[in-house]
Every structure is written in structure tokens, then in C-alpha cells.
């Protein structure tokens, strides 16, 4: 259940961010959003808070602060040059990683929980006590999907460049702010539940594009499904191959990278 939602969110946010930044290397991690969300999650954990209705709010706040920090660092006169944006993302990412380490040191006895969160895990099991947090997670996922999907055509056009998009009637600054807002919502909630699971947001949209083409109206739903599928499989592997549970982030990276390399080579030879 958690893996479906987490995978769906990561895949879909990866697709929209790559679209809006005109950059196939963009992903929530490179942008520093996930680091912001991690700090937002680590802080209440370090304070001994375990309430899954409240933690996602902190994570979302962390992600939102991170994305707007990146945005205001990188934007100039209401526009965002894309290379500056990536640099600002890395910068903000470092800053929040440092803050996370600080909370780890200060957190003392909660260190284990924070490290576990950073590695990425799908250990949250659905039970009666978690109905409200799970409903929030699901509702956020649906909301983010609808908002991203509805802007699909404009994301397509934005990939021609901001000025071209403007000439075709797209209000790119508004679109960016909207996408940033829903992306941080999505990433915040995902990190609160599952910690950092890398690789999915970066590679799933690539696989989607190789399979179904670059149209975001197809790419966003297919990235959602592919992301969910990948995480279900990764989770099963993480639980079954070793006598102990491997962090799922490790599995996604170890299996995903060769698969992606294979797809890339195959496309080059066509």
C-alpha cells in the first residue's frame, strides 16, 4: 500500500519536474526538495514525535521551504534560468543535509529512526490506527495527479523553452509556481512515510518516455503506474532476498541503474 503511493508520487513528480525544468536530469533530490522534506521529518523525529498525522505537515513544510528557497535563489526578475535553478537546488540540498546531520547529532536516542528514514523504507504497515494518515497520503496523491495531469499540454509546450511557450500563450511563471507547490506537497508526504527513496523520480520518467513518448498527458499517468510497479517489486525484493530487510532505496538503485543503462543503449542502437 505504501509502496504503491510512494512509487506513484515519485514517478509522477519526477515527470512534471523534468518537464518544467526542461531538463531530463531534474528530480526531487537534485532540486534539494527531498532534503528539505527530510529535515522536516527528522526534526519531529529527533524530538521524539511519532504521530503520523503531524509529521507529514513538517515534511511538507520542509519541502516547501526548500523549493521556495531554491526558487528565490535562482529566479531573477521573475524568471528562472534553468542551470541556475539546478545549482541552487544542489546548494539548498547541501544546506538541508547539514541540518539533518545536526538533528541526528542532537537527536541522540532517536538517531536510529532518522538513519532508517534517510535510507528509505516501506515498513509502515496499514492498520486501523493509521487510517487518517493514509487517507491524507492517498488524497494528496490524487490531488497532485489531477493538478499535474491537467497541465500536461502546457508542460509539453514549456519544453520548447520559456520564450517559445510564452509565444504560444503559456503563462510559464504561474505554471512553475503551481508545479513547485504540488511537487513539494507530494514529496513532503512521501518522505514522511517512506524516507528518501532515490532513483525512482529520476529514472521512471525516462523509462516512460522511452516506452510511450514525451507527451506529458501520457507520461504523467504512465510514470505514476511505472513508479508504483517498480516500488512494489523493489519492496518484495528488499524483504525476501536476505535474512534481514534491505533498505528499499538500495534495491531501487541496484536494480534500476542497470535496467536504465540497458534501455539507454537499446535506444542508441535503434
Amino acid at each position: 500500500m505504501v509502496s504503491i503511493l510512494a512509487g506513484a508520487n515519485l514517478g509522477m513528480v519526477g515527470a512534471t519536474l523534468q518537464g518544467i525544468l526542461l531538463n531530463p536530469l531534474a528530480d526531487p533530490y537534485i532540486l534539494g526538495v527531498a532534503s528539505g522534506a527530510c529535515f522536516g521529518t527528522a526534526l519531529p523525529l529527533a524530538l521524539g514525535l511519532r504521530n503520523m498525522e503531524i509529521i507529514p505537515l513538517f515534511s511538507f513544510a520542509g519541502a516547501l521551504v526548500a523549493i521556495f528557497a531554491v526558487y528565490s535563489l535562482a529566479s531573477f526578475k521573475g524568471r528562472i534560468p534553468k542551470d541556475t535553478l539546478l545549482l541552487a537546488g544542489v546548494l539548498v540540498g547541501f544546506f538541508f543535509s547539514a541540518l539533518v546531520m545536526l538533528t541526528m547529532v542532537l537527536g541522540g536516542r532517536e538517531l536510529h529512526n532518522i538513519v532508517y528514514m534517510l535510507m528509505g523504507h516501506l515498513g509502515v504497515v496499514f492498520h486501523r490506527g493509521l487510517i487518517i494518515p493514509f487517507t491524507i497520503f492517498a488524497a494528496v496523491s490524487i490531488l497532485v495527479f489531477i493538478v499535474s495531469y491537467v497541465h500536461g499540454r502546457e508542460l509539453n509546450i514549456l519544453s520548447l523553452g520559456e520564450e517559445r511557450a510564452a509565444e504560444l500563450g503559456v503563462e510559464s511563471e504561474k505554471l512553475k509556481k503551481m508545479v513547485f507547490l504540488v511537487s513539494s506537497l507530494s514529496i513532503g508526504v512521501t518522505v514522511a512515510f517512506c524516507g528518501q527513496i532515490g532513483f525512482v523520480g529520476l529514472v521512471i520518467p525516462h523509462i516512460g518516455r522511452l516506452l510511450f513518448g514525451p507527451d506529458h498527458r501520457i507520461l504523467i499517468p504512465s510514470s505514476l503506474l511505472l513508479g508504483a510497479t517498480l516500488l512494489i517489486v523493489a519492496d518484495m525484493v528488499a524483504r525476501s532476498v536476505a535474512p534481514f530487510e534491505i533498505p528499499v532505496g538500495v534495491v531501487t538503485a541496484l536494480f534500476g541503474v542497470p535496467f536504465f543503462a540497458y534501455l539507454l543503449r537499446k535506444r542508441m542502437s535503434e
Partner: protein
Amino acid sequence: METLVLDGITTGYEGREVLKDLNLVVEDGSMLAVIGPNGCGKTTLLRTVTGTLKPWRGRVMLFGGDAARLSRREVSRLVAVVPQESYFVYSFSVEEIVLMGRNPYLRRFQRERPEDYSIAYEAMRFTDILHLKERRIDALSGGERQRVVIARSIAQKAKILLLDEPTSHLDINHQIEILDLLIRLHRQGMTILFVSHDLNLASEYCERIALMNDGRIEAIGGPEEVIDPDLIHRVYGAKVRVEKNPITNLPHVLLPGRLEES
């Protein structure tokens, strides 16, 4: 009727003034070439018309209305742009790119309607790229790609077409192809504003030429008036000879070097 009026436009980038109290009137259905030395503000002029660059002073009037009051969508139904070169991060198909020209007419959640497809197909037929519609844009040659971009701007059903040196990266065969396309569009009543580096091309293909110099229009008129050796010397600082092209009987700029040796 005046399709486009630039009324005392002053604008630029980060405190650097590029256009200086520029005035220009473009008549409905005319084909105007804008020429001038590097950095005189030709591309800035186009940006001001599309509203991607806001005037510091002065007004852009589109069909008698103040362009500053129009939304991006409304402007894009009136003005279409063909840039010098287009970059494609993701490999969309030709058909998908041309259909993007219909964006100004579609609501956010709306799919392309059958009429949008027929307009896009008509545009692809007009530019002779219908046979390429399934192809990926990054697999096309420069000339084909430029025809795709022109098809997209036709599908936009705008009243004014702005072109920023659309042929400067193309070989002579593709240049002629693109220019023939523009002439056919002009005959259908499209108002065309064509920025060019090539004085001869402007002279042969456009009935009116605006010569820009340092953010202003230095001269405007027919090729005989503007393609003048003294005027060109004053603006470009280059000494050239102007002869009549024996085929078209229009002024033709000759480079001095070899001419004076022989």
C-alpha cells in the same frame, strides 16, 4: 488598416537601453523586412511585439488595442513567432509539435478537437511536411525543422507572423523553400514582419524594408529607397555598391573587394 503600431517604445535589459523611442507602423497584410547591424535591437523589437519584453515607455498597439491589456493567450491568437533556431529537449513527433500551435484556443483540460487536427493537417500540407508527421522532430534536417515550426505558427491562426532570421542557418535551397512559403502566406493576407541580416534577401522578397540603427528606425520604404549605398554606409559603416538585379530589377548589394580589383 494598421495591424501593429509601436508608439514611442523605449525598452531594454537590466538598465541597458536597446530600443530608443522607436516608432513603427505595420499595415494590414504587408510584408515588412527589418534589417540593421548586429545589436541594433531587431530581436528586441520582436520581443516587444510579443510582450515577452515589456516596454519601459511607449505602447504596443495590436489591431487598435493596447497590447499591454491582453493576456498571453490573447496575444498568441494574434501574433505567431518563428525563431532563428528551435531547440527540442524531448523528441516530440512533428504532428505533436504542430498541434501545440492550437494551445491558445484550448482550455486547460481540453483535448485537441477534430477541428484542431484538421487545422494542423492543413498547415502541414501547406508547408509540405505531412509525410513527416510521425517522425521525431530531432531526426529532421534544419530545413524540415524550420518548416515544422512555420506549420506550427500557421496552425496558431495568428494575424501577424514574426520571423527572426528564419533562414540564416539553412543552405540556399532551403532558404528559397522557406521564402516561397512566406510569399504564399503573404498572398493569403498574412501580415509578415521578417528580421533579416541579408540585405539582398530583404530587397528581393519584401515590398517594404525598415532599416534599424541603434534602437531606432533609420529609414523605411521600398527597396529602392532603403537599399542605398550612402544610407548603408552611414548605418553599417561599410562601403558597398548597389546595382540592379537583372532578374528582378530590384536593388542588389555588391561587396566592394573583388569588384574594384577587376
